[in-house]
Structures are given as structure tokens and as C-alpha cells.
């Protein structure tokens, strides 16, 4: 609850003070705010209250800590529009944010018990499994795990997916993604995966999963995208049915 008054706990009041200084430009984007001890001294608060105030703002992505350097005001988030076409790359390209992806793994695997059910395949059918990291301005922002039936995109193995989007590859193969069931969750990753996007295991991530169909209703792709919460927010429009 963002609105604070003089009766609110001090850390909430401080949180709102810092928030409005960011909004007013007194603390400009990309610069460090005063240190915890300076803030504690200025407002005569104990360091714990200062830390609580800062931790909420870090969660919201307004602030971020840089090891050994201090606490900085974050730049604007890349909005990911849930209702527009295309994948992550398209969205980021449209907004001209320096983006690239690095592929960690791209391999065939058996669909197995779960993905065969999810994607209407036999257990022994092959799937392309891809794990990659999306970067924005050279910082990792998301870990993506992508499952595509081999029979849907036989040529997938030959395409350099660091240069071309999967959406492009679908189009080249005459496939048009038409709709996707999306689920948004918040969870904690295992330490080894959290590390890939510069998070620790006690920092939550947002997981967006997509089960995509084409015009014939055939399931063509399942993705799980683990997104740093301080880098992206999810935006959608709704209307009365």
C-alpha cells in the first residue's frame, strides 16, 4: 500500500520519500542515492528501517544495488505487451533497447511423459529443447526454456537463433502463431539457474509460460521465461466481453 501518512511506520514513510524524490528527478536515473548510513543520519532512523524501505523499492525495480558501489536509481522497464504479436526480441527491438540473446543449449530430447501430454505428442517423439539468456544493454534479464516439436520445425537445428527470432523461423516454415495460453507466476529458481540471470536463490523471479497454437489449433511451442522482476513488468488491456 503506497500511500503513507505520519502515522505509518517510519520505513514506509521513508520509502515514499525516496519514491517521490525519484519521481521528481531529485535522484536521477543511473545515479546513486545517499548511502544507508547517510539516510539513517538525515532522517534519524535506525539502519534496519532504512534497509526495509530500500528493499521494497528494489523489489519494485526502482532501485538496484551494485556490489561495492551503492544503491542506484534504475532506468525505465522494458514493457512487454501481452497482447501484441511476437516474442521477446520483437518487443525489445521495437523499443530499440540494445538486446541480444546467448544460447546455452540447443538439443533434441525425447518428449517424455509430460511434454508429450502438453504438446499432443508421443513420449518417444523428439523435441527441440533450447535454453538461452536474454540480455538488455549487456545485462542478463531473462532465462528462457523453449520446447518445440521436431516435426513442427525440422530445420530448427540449422538456424542461428542468436540472430533470428523463433517467430521468424515459424514464419519461414509457413506457420503462424495465432494464440497462446499464458501463465504468470512468481517463484524461486534453484541457485544454479538463478545465477544465470545474476540473481541469488532468495530473490524471486517472474515466470511467464506460453503454450502457443497455430491457426489449425496445433500446439507449436511451449516456453518458460524466467524474468528478473526488476527489469520487466507485464502489461495488458482488458475489455468487457
Amino acid at each position, binding site marked *: 500500500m503506497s500511500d503513507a501518512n505520519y502515522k505509518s511506520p517510519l520505513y*514506509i514513510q521513508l520509502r515514499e520519500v525516496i519514491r517521490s524524490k525519484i519521481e521528481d528527478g531529485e535522484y536521477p536515473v543511473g545515479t546513486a542515492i545517499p548511502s544507508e548510513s547517510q539516510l539513517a543520519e538525515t532522517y534519524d532512523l535506525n539502519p534496519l528501517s532504512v534497509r526495509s524501505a530500500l*528493499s521494497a523499492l528494489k*523489489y519494485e525495480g526502482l532501485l538496484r544495488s551494485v556490489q561495492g558501489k551503492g544503491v542506484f536509481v534504475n532506468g525505465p522497464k522494458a514493457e512487454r505487451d*501481452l497482447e501484441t504479436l511476437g516474442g521477446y526480441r520483437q518487443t525489445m527491438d521495437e523499443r530499440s533497447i540494445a538486446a541480444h540473446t546467448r544460447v546455452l543449449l540447443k538439443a533434441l530430447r525425447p518428449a517424455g511423459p509430460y*511434454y508429450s501430454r502438453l504438446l499432443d505428442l508421443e513420449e518417444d517423439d523428439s523435441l527441440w529443447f533450447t535454453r538461452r539468456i536474454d540480455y538488455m544493454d549487456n545485462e542478463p534479464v531473462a532465462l528462457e526454456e523453449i520446447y518445440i516439436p521436431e516435426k513442427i520445425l525440422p530445420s530448427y537445428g540449422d538456424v542461428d537463433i542468436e540472430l533470428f527470432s523463433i517467430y521468424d523461423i515459424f514464419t519461414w516454415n509457413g506457420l503462424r502463431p495465432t494464440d497462446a495460453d*499464458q501463465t504468470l507466476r512468481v*517463484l524461486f529458481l534453484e541457485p544454479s539457474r538463478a545465477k544465470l540471470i545474476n540473481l541469488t536463490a532468495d530473490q*524471486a523471479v517472474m515466470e511467464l509460460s506460453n503454450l502457443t497454437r497455430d491457426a489449425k489449433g496445433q500446439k507449436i511451442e511451449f516456453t518458460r521465461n524466467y524474468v528478473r522482476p526488476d527489469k520487466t513488468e507485464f502489461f*495488458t488491456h482488458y475489455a468487457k466481453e
Partner: protein
Amino acid sequence: MNTYKPRPKELATEYLESYILENNLKAHDRLPPERELSQMWNLNRVTLRSAIASMEAAGRLYSVQGRGTMVAPRFVRTLQNLESFTKYASHYEAKSETRLLSFSKVECDKHLSQRFQRMLGEKLYRISRLRILDGVPIMIENAFIPCDLAPGLEEHDLVKGSLFAVLERSYGLIMDHGEEKASITAATAEEAEYLEIKPDSPAFWIVSTTRTPDDVVVEYCRTVARVDVVEMSSVLRWDYAGGADHE
């Protein structure tokens, strides 16, 4: 081309997920004993246990001493609609309950005045409600509504009734469309207490603005929702120039 062999724990998780799908297990339905599952899938019990532990940590399963492992309750909140909480609860055959935490009048601060495109200091109702499903507190909604659009709103029952229904029936305000943003916040001590979670634990932070057909902003709402029992869903549609494919 490389081939990828799922690691044993990954495979165990896939078996468990597929079991839940195949048997259409619902919240609180029980899984067979570990011994049985490890035999059925020919999996090492330590591996199976570790997969179950991860799924418990992710809020997918839960265990009760002496009763086994059950599917955890999850409530899916649909992003793109305007249905009432009571109607929403009915999809889950869940008992819904609403507690009014506060009802007050506040003045537009800079942020709110931008949201509503109104002057600083104009009066807004602020309605804070806790939503509970089957005894589980799932979210706190803080709604703001301009007082001049709904004078006397405090006379209405906003605990049993739907706010949007009151706005439509008593004030002729039709909630037609809006937009919503979802991100993460850390629950404050007060929010955590209502939601029965630990302070500072992550929570969904959902901000929505709802408008009438002629684009008047009627409601601005900030929601804090538990992430261990709530997930959000949406359907993405690709909008091709020249219309979608129809076969």
C-alpha cells in the same frame, strides 16, 4: 545435432506433472506413496523425494506428516476480464469471503491526480478489501474512486456485493475497459499479516485502471496478491494486419 538427456530430477518432476495432468488431480488430491511412484517410474527414491521437495518449494505440492503429499491449491486470476470476486470464486467452487479493511476519503496526490486526470486535492474514496478463498487470504485490493462519480458510496454494502455492480446499478457507471500492469513487490509487515505470509516475502503487485465506454477513469486499483497460491493467466492473440486467419 546434440541430444539432451533430462537429468534424473528433471525427469522425476516431469513424471509428477504428467501424473497430475493425466489423473486430473485437483487441489488437496493426494499422490500415491513415494514407494509406489518410484517403482512405477523406475526412479531412485532420493531423486523422487528431491523433485517433490522442489515442487513443494514452488507451491505446487504440499506434504502433511502422516497423510502424504497433496496437490497445493492454486487460484488462477484471469487478467483480461472484469468479473466480480464472487463469480470468480464460483469457478473454483470455493467459498469466497471479503473483509473491509478500511473505507476512507483521501485527496489526490500527484500520482493519483495523473491517474485520474484530476486536480491535486480532489476527493477520492479509498476502499481496502481483503479477499479470502476457502479460508485462505489471497489478496488485498486497494481501490480508489472519485467521490463525485459515486456520492454516498459509503452507504452501500461492498463486502457482500460487488463494487462494479454497485457502480453500475446505483451510479450508471459502466466498467467497460482498462489496463493492468503486473510486477513484484515485497509485502509490508501490515500486508503480510493480513495475507498470513512473512513480511518482505515477494507478492504480486498489480495496478489497474478501469474506464467507462467514453474513457472516464472510474477506478484505479492497487492489488497485493500472494504468490504461493495465486497465478495469473491470459490469452495472447496475434493480431495480423488484414485480420486473423480463419480456417
